[in-house]
């Protein structure tokens, strides 16, 4: 048990810095357990010996009352104190482990995002990662400590008994190994399969519940709600059946443990009684053995939970290792010379997200001069957002080269590359924090004055000044307290704070109604004057103010030119946007 399976390797290494604390924590837990066993063993010996001594007045008078009663008191106090100290130390260690684990995981994950994490993007899978890390946080306190303590007690108590009666010692050792290790492990093994079906059934219940809620309008209008409810009831019953199996296994395990520990005490008693009969064993020692054995089995009762936890933890560490062992998709040089100017060139870019998938972009060429503003249009899936992903180097192209100011972006350091660009995208994440902390992400050293002027530029200042807590307003998980338009404007304010020479705008007005859409576009056009700008859009708003419009189809540019020229040419452009009104 002290040697966890290979998958724990990286995590065990994380525990190294805490090893002295861990030794202390385990030693204290052991001390508390051992003192409890000592207390009962000594008490049993003491009253038996004194009962024998008390049979005649002389022996009673000679009996040393002092030492045992002091010993009993010491054990009693040690048990209490060690238990309290053990709790404090072990919880403190758990939190320290949590800290190292989070940092370790974060540092491993950071270079992988977002390319290698694309498969894990959905909230559900991220939540599972979090749950897996939580499971590892508890590896020490729930698995390691109880196992080590149980192991030590299993060695200690029969070891002490060995000098008195070897048969009893062997019996107790065998009993403790069976009750503490063999039986819980067998139960855990038996539970693995139903554990899998448990996970499957609860996932199915969850999926059907979520889609039932998302599609409730569909279900009601098409009168299929009853049908869906009975589907959920079926999932629920299947889940209960799987849990029933688990419960039968754990019931059987606890019955087995009761049976085996009882039987062991019975055999100890039987062997001891015959030892007493043959005068090989002092009767008081027999009492001590029985009491100590009863107390020792109490220490083992926490093991089934530990083993159950171990399988969960093993599964968690396997999944986490799988994620962090991926190689980073892009690497940056540590230093670079900033670009001479901020024109962009895409040269024969070809890209696909996965080797097996078709090309998203093929032989793509585009030149955006310094200070030029260009719109990219085209059907969904034409590869527009992918171009941005390549520009910020979330991915690298399969073939071709992207240049900023004539320099290949792959020789720019991450700092120089990030400094060059401000991005307003649909996926821009708002953090659970205040407006101020979200704004300062873009520019940590910005003071209030600077924040307000950024808000003003994004036309969000009036909204924020009307809030009772202004910049200190808590915007909640993923910016829930903001409307879509406000969130988008906040992203614009962040971009303003970046004060970057290149602006990348990915459908900045999507989801806004037409009034807000126009207002935001006007703001953005004013802000990007004299800067290099790429705008992805499929909304026909204010495009005549841009220098050029490029239309993408299947990863290539099929039309390019100024708004008026494209309209006159009457090719794809007039059909793309719904130029209504």
């Amino acid at each position, binding site marked *: 048990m002290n040697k966890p399976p290979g998958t724990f390797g990286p995590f065990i290494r994380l525990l190294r810095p805490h090893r002295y604390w861990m030794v202390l924590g385990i030693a204290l837990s052991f001390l508390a357990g051992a003192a409890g066993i000592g207390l009962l063993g000594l008490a049993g010996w003491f009253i038996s010996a004194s009962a024998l001594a008390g049979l005649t007045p002389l022996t009673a008078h000679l009996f040393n009352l002092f030492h045992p009663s002091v010993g009993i008191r010491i054990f009693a106090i040690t048990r209490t104190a060690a238990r309290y100290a053990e709790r404090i130390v072990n919880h403190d260690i758990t939190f320290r482990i949590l800290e190292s684990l989070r940092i370790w995981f974060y540092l491993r994950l950071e270079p992988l995002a977002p390319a290698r994490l694309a498969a894990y993007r959905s909230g559900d899978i991220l939540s599972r990662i979090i749950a897996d890390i939580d499971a590892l946080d508890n590896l020490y306190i729930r698995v390691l400590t109880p196992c080590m303590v149980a192991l030590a007690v299993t060695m200690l108590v029969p070891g002490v008994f060995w000098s008195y009666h070897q048969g009893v010692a062997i019996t107790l050792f065998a009993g403790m190994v069976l009750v503490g290790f063999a039986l819980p492990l067998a139960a855990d093994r038996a539970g693995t399969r139903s554990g899998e079906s448990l996970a499957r059934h609860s996932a199915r219940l969850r999926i059907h*519940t979520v889609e039932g809620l998302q599609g409730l309008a569909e279900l009601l209008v098409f009168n299929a709600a009853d049908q869906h*409810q009975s589907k959920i009831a079926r999932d629920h019953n299947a889940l209960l059946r799987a849990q029933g199996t688990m419960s039968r296994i754990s019931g059987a395990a606890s019955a087995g443990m009761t049976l085996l520990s009882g039987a062991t005490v019975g055999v100890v*008693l039987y062997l001891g009684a015959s030892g007493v009969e043959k005068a090989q064993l002092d009767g008081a020692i027999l009492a001590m053995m029985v009491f100590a054995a009863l107390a020792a089995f109490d220490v083992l009762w926490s093991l089934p939970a530990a083993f159950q936890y171990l399988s969960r933890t093993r599964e968690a560490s396997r999944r986490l290792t799988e994620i962090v062992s991926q190689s980073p998709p892009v690497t940056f040089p540590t230093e670079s010379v900033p670009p001479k100017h901020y024109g962009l060139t895409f040269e024969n870019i070809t890209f696909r997200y996965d080797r097996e998938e078709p090309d998203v972009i093929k032989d793509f060429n585009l030149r955006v001069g310094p200070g030029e503003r260009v719109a990219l249009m085209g059907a969904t899936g034409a590869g527009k957002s992918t171009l941005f992903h390549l520009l910020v180097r979330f991915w690298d192209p399969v073939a071709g080269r992207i240049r900023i100011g004539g320099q290949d972006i792959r020789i720019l350091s991450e700092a120089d590359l990030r400094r060059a660009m401000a991005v307003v995208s649909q996926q821009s994440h708002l953090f659970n924090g205040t407006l101020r902390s979200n704004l300062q992400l873009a520019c940590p050293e910005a003071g209030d004055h600077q924040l307000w002027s950024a808000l003003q530029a994004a036309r969000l200042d009036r909204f924020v000044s009307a809030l009772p807590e202004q910049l200190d307003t808590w915007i909640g998980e993923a910016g829930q307290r903001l409307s879509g338009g406000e969130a988008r404007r906040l992203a614009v304010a962040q971009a303003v704070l970046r004060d970057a020479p290149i602006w990348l705008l990915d459908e900045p007005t999507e989801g806004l109604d037409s009034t807000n859409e126009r207002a935001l576009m006007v703001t953005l056009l004013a802000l990007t004057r004299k800067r290099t700008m790429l705008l992805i859009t499929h909304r026909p708003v204010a495009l005549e103010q841009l220098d050029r419009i490029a239309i993408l189809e299947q990863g290539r540019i099929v039309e390019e030119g100024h708004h008026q020229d494209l309209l006159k040419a009457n090719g794809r452009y007039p059909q793309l946007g719904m130029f209504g009104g």
Partner: protein
Amino acid sequence: MLAVGLGFASGLLLIAQAALIAHLIHAAFIETTPRSELTPYFGLFILIVVGRAGMAWAREMAGFQAGTRVRTEVRLDLVAHLTAAGPAFTRHKQSGALASIVVEQVEALHNFFAHYLPQLGLAVLVPLSILAVVFPVSWTAGAILALTAPLIPLFMVIVGMGAESISQRQFQALSRMSAYFLDVLQGLPTLKIFQRSKAEADRVAETSRTYRQRTMQVLRVAFLSSAVLEFFSSVSIALVAVYLGTHFLGYIDFGTYGSPLTLGAGLFILILSPDFYLPLRDLGTHYHARAEAAGAAEAIMQILRTPISQLQPSDAPVRIIQPLGIQFDRVTFAFNGDAPNLLENVSFTVRAGEKVVLAGASGAGKTTLLDLLMGFHQPTGGKILVNGFPMASMDCAQWRDQMAWVGQQPVLFHGSLRDNIRLGRPEAGEAAIIAAARAAKVLEFADRMPAGLDAPVGEQGRRLSRGQAQRVALARAFLADAPLLLLDEPTAGLDSVNERLVVSAIEALSRGRTVIMVTHRMTNVHSADRVLVLADGGIAEEGCFQDLLAARGALYHLLHQPATGGAAP
């Protein structure tokens, strides 16, 4: 409760087992009884152990059953209530969060009913029965235990509070930490863009350090309460042992009823002393189940208390003659008593077979108006008439049979394309499904898939694009073949190719039906018979598209915002 009864019986067996062990040691040691005479007692001992093992098994089963019954009832109630509350309620909640109440929070109830409640009964019953057998043997030993007995309820409160604050604080700290970390992971691309992703590692460290320090401060105090219980139990065992030892040696002769105690009696008492406190300690370990269940119950009750404002089932016969006309008669609606009216005295008529477009700025109440028609809400004033018959008294299922609806974001369910198309008509024949799929241009992409209409959709299968999903939703509406068609921005967010396909499918679908469409896409407006413009809670203007544009009223301003204008074709 069965589980408590079984646990109690098991406790009584434990007392019998203690008596047997005590007797055996006493007999072998003091009375030097030959082992052969003790054999029957060993047999009895094994029987008791088997009995306790059986009880342990039965207790787990009984607890499981109890937890299962509660969960079944609560979960199915929740699902039924959410369905009854309808999209009007669920639309404004995150479906993931609601689902976690239905799935995880209901699971959290289990341990409370399966483990905590039975243990609560035992924590009272077992100590009392131990007292009941110890007192007749020695009142002093009984008194030592009993001194702490009145403290048991107090202990329960202390342990309760202690355990509650421990598990709550620890749980809170951990879940806050996890929520923070989840937030960071989700925002990792954003952090990268802002060049903050490396620096964030320090913040992760700092945040977890603060959590540790703050939580440990609380835990140091909280652990004291369980230390008190530990202390009392250790001290009582020590006191009982010292009392018995000195009694045997003849230093103390009180505490019994006349004759001195035998060793057997002493051992019996000593074995039972730790068991006196054990159920209480176990209760502490189950306490987090109580805290979790309390939190879960609150979340669950909040849902179950949601008032239901949907159209309900009714026995009233439907009097709907096709085709179907609709009349809004001074309809007023507000989300709740305090909220301002979203719609106020709205009156209009849609004649049978007419195609009407509802226009208006975001938030003007267009979607709410459709919700009212679908019976997801009920008007707070006025009435909706269907062919002159009040909708409020119709049966919800029969009324919804008369309509098909295609929303902005169609939801596809796990299953095949075919399953999704026949959502409303599971009994539909192959020919009808194919016809609907063809009319809605689903076949265009389904035919390119190896499995055709049997291709799986949803997470297990490939994801359809928005446009494809919208066409599947249209196929549903084709198959439903209902006289009333409600469309809520069916082309929003589609690229031009898909938009053209969807628009032409909608035109085909509209033939011979009454259609109400919410849109701000002008391509959709041209084909409408009439446009209703919603503004300020009422109908601002109505008429045919060209006339309204020419009048330069509300519709004109809706389309021609100030600021830079879109170009006209």
